[in-house]
């Protein structure tokens, strides 16, 4: 690593040993050495995939020589939307993201508020630890649980519904697959909202809550006017992060239904996977990926810009 700096320091000071010189170079430019690997990896994982997806989406078929590719304009995009089911999968994905996000936020907040109000510290931490455990369940294990418990023939849940209630159990995975996916994700990730909201609630100063109690504000007013506004940054970040992760949903659906029956649970991530590895339509897959990338990143940036990260940072 012979940079100009090195030769300069050589001429300025007495001759140094090689190790001393390296050490000098290291210490003088510490911030650069510290940040360079991160920056390199970040460039590789943010700019490269987007650019490559875009390139793939514009060509006829992938070739070894990037410059010899046949550019076909936007035809891959029109294929994606006319025959590739892109629109359908986008709608399905947004349905799952929105409903799971609402369910998990509300449930997580209610549980957090209830646990925060428990009198005994020991009972409190018992609930806190217990409630985070579903997060340990990987999508693949979650799909396993779903398959075992919801199976129409051998599943315990249909069995209990059929034998203990007057209702007939629905065929969860074939008749209401999307709802099943949403509910399973809720089971899996409500803990995420719970634990962050719980931490947020604990950070609300007692004096603030006490003051509004003395003023005679009823419980719901205390939450709406005092506690939730105070927690706004936490609520915002939790929801944003969860939203980002919901757009990544893949494993559970892949394990449960593989996108089916038909295309009923074909989320965008499943759709892209199928276009690429089942249908061998790499360029169409890339076109969907480009649309999806732009949509998700734009949406997240709009949310960040609108709601603002400033309250969070400073």
């Amino acid at each position, binding site marked *: 690593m012979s940079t100009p700096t090195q030769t300069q320091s050589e001429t300025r000071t007495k001759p140094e040993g090689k190790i001393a010189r390296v050490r000098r170079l290291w*210490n003088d430019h*510490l911030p650069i050495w*510290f*940040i360079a*690997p*991160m920056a390199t*990896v970040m460039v*590789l994982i*943010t700019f*490269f*995939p*987007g650019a*490559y*997806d875009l390139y*793939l989406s514009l060509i006829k078929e992938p070739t070894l020589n990037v410059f010899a590719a046949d550019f076909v304009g936007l035809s891959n995009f029109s294929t994606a939307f006319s025959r590739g089911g892109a629109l359908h999968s986008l709608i399905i994905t947004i349905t799952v993201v929105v409903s799971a996000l609402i369910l998990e936020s509300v449930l997580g907040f209610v*549980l957090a508020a209830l*646990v925060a109000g*428990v009198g005994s510290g020991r009972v409190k931490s018992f*609930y*806190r*630890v*217990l409630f*985070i*455990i579903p997060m*340990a*369940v*990987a999508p*693949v*294990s979650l799909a*396993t*649980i779903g*398959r*075992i*418990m919801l199976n129409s023939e*051998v599943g*315990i849940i249909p*069995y209990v519904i059929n034998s203990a209630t007057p209702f007939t159990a629905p065929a969860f995975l074939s008749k209401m697959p999307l709802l099943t996916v949403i509910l399973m994700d809720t089971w899996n990730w409500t803990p995420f909202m719970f*634990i*962050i909201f*719980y*931490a*947020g609630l604990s*950070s609300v100063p007692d004096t603030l809550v006490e003051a509004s109690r003395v003023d005679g504000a*009823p419980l719901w007013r205390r939450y709406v006017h005092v506690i939730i506004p105070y927690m706004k*940054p936490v609520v915002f*970040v939790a929801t944003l992060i969860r939203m*980002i992760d919901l*757009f*990544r949903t*893949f*494993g559970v659906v*892949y394990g449960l239904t593989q996108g089916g029956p038909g295309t009923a649970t074909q989320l965008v*991530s499943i759709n*892209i*996977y199928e276009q*690429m590895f089942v249908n061998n339509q790499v360029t169409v897959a890339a076109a969907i*990926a480009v649309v999806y990338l732009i949509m998700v990143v734009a949406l*997240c940036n709009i949310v960040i810009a609108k709601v603002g990260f400033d309250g*969070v*940072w400073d």
Partner: protein
Amino acid sequence: MATTKAEPGSSQRFEKDTREKIVSVVRHAILLTWSFVVLFPLYWLASMSLKPPGQANTLPPDWVFLPTVYNYLQLFQRSKFVTAFGNSLIMVAASVVLVLLIGVPAAYVLSRYDIPMERDVLVWILSSRMLPPIAVVLPFFFIFRNLNLFDTRIGMVLMYVSINLSLVVWVMKAFFDGIPVTLEEAARVDGATRFQGFRKVVLPAAKPGIYSVAIISFIFAWIELLFGLVLTNSKAVPVTLYVYSFIGSRSIEWSMLAAASMAMIIPVAVFLILVNKYLAAGLSFGVVLKE
């Protein structure tokens, strides 16, 4: 909930007491219900993994049974499962070490130095998490084939690093922000170099953060499926992928599936319970920590 206007007297106190009792009962009823919702599926999976195969999915279920580790023994006798499990352990652990080596120093610099456009840099780092992995994996599929990284552990380690880097940088930056600068300044007055100040003073103070971010990174990499599905074939298959081989076939091997799933859940559950104190900070990218 109606607030009672000031009406001093024992009847009000009595009313308040009963109301508090009712609130408490309702509270615990809801919390216990959710506890059941959380625990029952896990109990069911665990019990299935501990039943002999013939007893696994009989209906009505055998609520009372003699637990056996037969399924686990069978599972760990399958060399492919052991390989996949070992693969995951090695690849995930290596990725955690690497992501800490890359992320922690970068977070330190972001915390201590004036970086131009620091806000944009941080949002850019966060944006790497916004990229849906399926859109990211497509380019890497091709580049991995060309660089002979396809189906290698090194390739998978790099992908796992990419999942967790933003998390590490954000959380550790928040942690470093909370450590007084005076600490390392004192060390430098005593003759320590910048690097020594970082290594001997700042790092030890940030230990709790490093542990928790390491474990959370471990978990996120451990449960990852898609990269394994697309970027491996046989040699570097992670355990998440191997578990699907019990499902994919025409008949599902219920007991083995349950045992394999449990084998994946247990280590992560233990980790989660260990870091539960710092979990919120880690999952929220450090925001909760700063409150």
